[in-house]
């Protein structure tokens, strides 16, 4: 290893850091540490003059390591890495100490905060000494895209990509396209027809020269990595020729919750207790009739069925409140004299035009009854022979506090949206993670909501979490834009800080193989050692952590680097 020559730069961040940290003291304290050639402070290190300072010093003082103590590396690590690169040293010979988010912003004692800044900077100095040059790598991108799921999200993304002239393989396990939306009658809040929206879209997808639609088809296996995937498909149980593509969009959606597990509602026992989707079928057929062909005189709509309840699903399905209000409009139009009861736990009308839609519904002579979702669900029972209705709902009306009986002839259960039973198979094939609710996890909940931690794999629509049509469509278009972006680039950068197996230490115990979330590790029978596919590896470090033989190291996160950092942070005794 060449003798390290370290330049240290302490940023004021205006007053953000300098108000709580004595930057002069920090600069001085670290200036005498071994290998530190110079240490300076400046008002805004990220500004052009700040970066120029680093570039000039690297050249004139022959620096080969740089430490900047400033904000979070999430914000400016790339900025300073680029500055290092501009000055001719490898960008990975840089380390950042976060003395803003982790120090000045969160402390109130200037002396203590200054001490902490010194510790953090010493840790970075000790670490950067052991940094090694790493080389950037990229792979070419196959311009075709695989889309899993032919609902509105999958079809939207398919059209977006295909209209840009790029090939799409759209696979759907059912025998038709359209997904859940194909079952809807009207949509909220505009009460426009779902059929008139989805029908022409299905036709455009089916007739598009750049889209290959595979119905009755399931994904069996995906191999490869961003830009270069292959997949095995099965059409009605028969293996299909392998397809190759560069990106994947998962749009597998959610399915309606089966309410028969909720005893109080007697779903499956009473024929006129139906789910919201079954009611959509009736609306599409054009007649609202009970099992015995009569128009119901009393209709109840129960909200939050399987939602917001620890026994079933803790989360809110987001759309059911609005769908219920849409039903109110449709029922009122069809049955002007019927009694309509909205039995709700909480009314959620958060979206554009939704509150207005709710307000409009209140003028439709509806009886709103509130129940306590946590304490006591309404109970549906058979009415007495001499009652003027088929069923009774016993409930405690929360706003009045009174126990009441609601006469009903038809009950619509607003069922929750939940994950498909076989979602884990898709998840395993494409290498994404699931949250506790079995929803696909995005790369970043705010800043990267359609990407996943696996390069080239995107998630759109409800498989990422319950959402309505506009949100699903927006996600689909966002993922399509991301993919068209990488296709236009022609190649993508792949992770540099990957894991490395030292084959002379690997004992072949294979502990690492199954822990890799990206299937980047495999066991080489000839070498009798594990090998890393560097294109698949994301450098998460899981394999290095679990390798009992110490044979796997993660580039840029070696034991030597991390232990030096810890030693550095512990080195001062005040």
């Amino acid at each position, binding site marked *: 290893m060449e003798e390290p020559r370290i330049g240290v730069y302490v940023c004021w961040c205006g007053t953000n850091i300098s108000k709580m940290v004595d930057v002069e003291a920090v600069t001085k304290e670290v200036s005498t540490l071994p290998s530190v050639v110079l240490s300076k402070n400046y008002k805004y290190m990220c500004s052009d003059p700040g970066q120029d300072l680093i570039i000039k010093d690297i050249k004139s003082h022959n620096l080969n390591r740089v430490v900047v103590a400033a904000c979070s590396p999430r914000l400016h690590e790339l900025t300073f890495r680029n500055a290092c690169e501009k000055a001719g040293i490898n960008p990975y010979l840089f380390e950042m100490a976060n003395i803003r988010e982790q120090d000045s912003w969160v402390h109130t004692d200037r002396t203590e905060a200054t001490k902490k800044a010194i510790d953090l900077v010493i840790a970075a100095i000790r670490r950067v000494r052991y940094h090694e040059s790493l080389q950037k790598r990229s792979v070419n991108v196959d311009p075709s895209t695989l889309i899993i799921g032919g609902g509105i999200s999958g079809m939207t993304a398919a059209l977006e990509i295909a209209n840009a002239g790029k090939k799409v393989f759209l696979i759907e396990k059912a025998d038709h396209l359209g997904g859940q939306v194909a079952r809807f009658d009207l949509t909220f809040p505009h009460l426009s027809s779902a059929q008139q929206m989805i029908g022409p879209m299905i036709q455009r997808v089916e007739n598009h020269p750049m889209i290959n639609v595979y119905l009755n088809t399931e994904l069996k296996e995906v191999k490869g990595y961003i830009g270069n995937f292959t997949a095995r498909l099965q059409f009605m149980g028969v293996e299909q020729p392998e397809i190759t593509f560069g990106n994947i969009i998962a749009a597998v959606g959610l399915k309606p919750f089966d309410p028969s597990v909720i005893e109080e509602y007697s779903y499956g026992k009473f024929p006129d207790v139906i789910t919201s989707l079954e009611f959509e079928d009736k609306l599409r057929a054009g007649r609202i009739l009970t099992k015995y062909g009569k128009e119901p005189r009393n209709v109840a709509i129960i909200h939050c069925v399987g939602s917001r309840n620890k026994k079933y699903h803790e989360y809110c399905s987001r759309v059911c409140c609005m769908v219920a209000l849409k039903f109110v409009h449709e029922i009122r139009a069809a049955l002007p004299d019927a009694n309509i009861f909205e039995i709700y736990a909480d009314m959620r009308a958060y979206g554009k035009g939704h509150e207005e839609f709710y307000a409009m519904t209140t003028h439709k002579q509806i009886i709103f009854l509130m129940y306590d979702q946590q304490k006591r669900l309404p109970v549906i029972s058979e009415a007495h022979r001499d009652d003027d209705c088929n069923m009774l709902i016993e409930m405690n009306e929360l706003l009045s506090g009174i126990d009441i009986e609601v006469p009903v002839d038809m009950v619509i259960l607003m069922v929750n949206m939940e994950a498909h039973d076989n979602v884990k198979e898709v998840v395993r094939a494409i290498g994404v993670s699931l949250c506790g609710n079995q929803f696909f996890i995005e790369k970043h909940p705010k800043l990267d909501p359609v990407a996943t931690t696996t390069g080239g794999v995107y998630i759109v629509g409800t498989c990422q979490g319950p959402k309505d049509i506009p949100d699903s469509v927006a996600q689909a278009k966002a993922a399509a834009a991301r993919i068209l972006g990488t296709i236009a680039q022609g190649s993508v950068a792949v992770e540099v800080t990957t894991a490395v197996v030292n084959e002379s230490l690997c004992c*072949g115990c294979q*502990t690492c193989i*199954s822990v890799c979330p990206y299937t980047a590790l495999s066991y080489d029978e000839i070498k009798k050692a594990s090998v890393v596919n560097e294109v698949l590896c994301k450098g998460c470090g899981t394999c290095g*952590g679990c390798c*009992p033989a110490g044979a796997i190291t993660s580039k840029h996160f070696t034991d030597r680097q991390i232990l030096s950092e810890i030693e550095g942070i512990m080195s001062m005794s005040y």
Partner: protein
Amino acid sequence: MAQESTKPKLKLAIYWGAACGGCCVSVLDTHEKLLDIVAAADLVFWPIAMDIKYKDVENMPDKSIDLTLFNGAVRNSENKHLAQLLRQKSKILVAYGSCAYMGGIPGLANFFSRNEIFKRAYEETESTLNPDKTIPLHSFKVKEGILEIPEMFNDVFPLNQIVDVDYYIPGCPPQSERLLEVFSAIVSGIGLPPAGSVVGANDKTNCDECKRKKSDKKQIKRFYRPWEIQDDKETCFIEQGVICMGPATRGGCGVRCVEGNSPCRGCYGPPPGATDPGAKMMAAIGTMIAADKPEEIDEIIETIVDPAGLFYRFSLPGSILGRKIL
């Protein structure tokens, strides 16, 4: 080696610190090859076999001993004195065996304090009757004068935490074959690695030599002690739910425990690059726990009997952990 008899013979010393005696026996276990050792070297100090006083060692010139094999950990003031003395008198000082190398079995005492150990040993053990609560003292006044015994430290130390060590030969005890290899290398001066190296052991861990079938299917629902399973004698112990330290332990012993259908206990210590074998093995075992829900993780971990003693059986004082903070 007969023709080399004209060459001056090496001076060899063997000492035991906090040890069980097994390391000294492993030297005898070289059987007839011991004669080759004696042909090449004069044994100048070996308390288990020869009647020589510490005073005699103190009177030797500095660096007059060519090679000292120091076995056992440093547990008391006597061990420490001899470690320092032998360092001063020896050209090459070897930490011989797991105790001198990492702290070994006596090093498990670092999970307790000296006071706790004295209390257990001199007051609480089932066979002890000590109503006056008498415990050993470093010095004690009798009418004839002051009696002194070595002072037991609060901590157990591996040899290199007391003095500089040239080589480490791991094992509990080291395989006698490995000792012979290292000894001939020292005699000939050929093939010796740089000072500070572990010798007489492999870089790869035991799984490399282990003949049992291994796969990436290490999914454990419950851990077993060896006697709790019907070992099929061919599947990796870990895959049968028995914790085997083999993956985190240097080869060199010839996988003798596993060949004898018993899991590796880890006496050869960590491979190069693994700083803390206990932590490494725990991290590896952690990935194998096949729990469907978080509570199940705890239930499965509960089935590991004495995890600290299991994972750090030979390595506690020499690990990053060092000891239990009391």
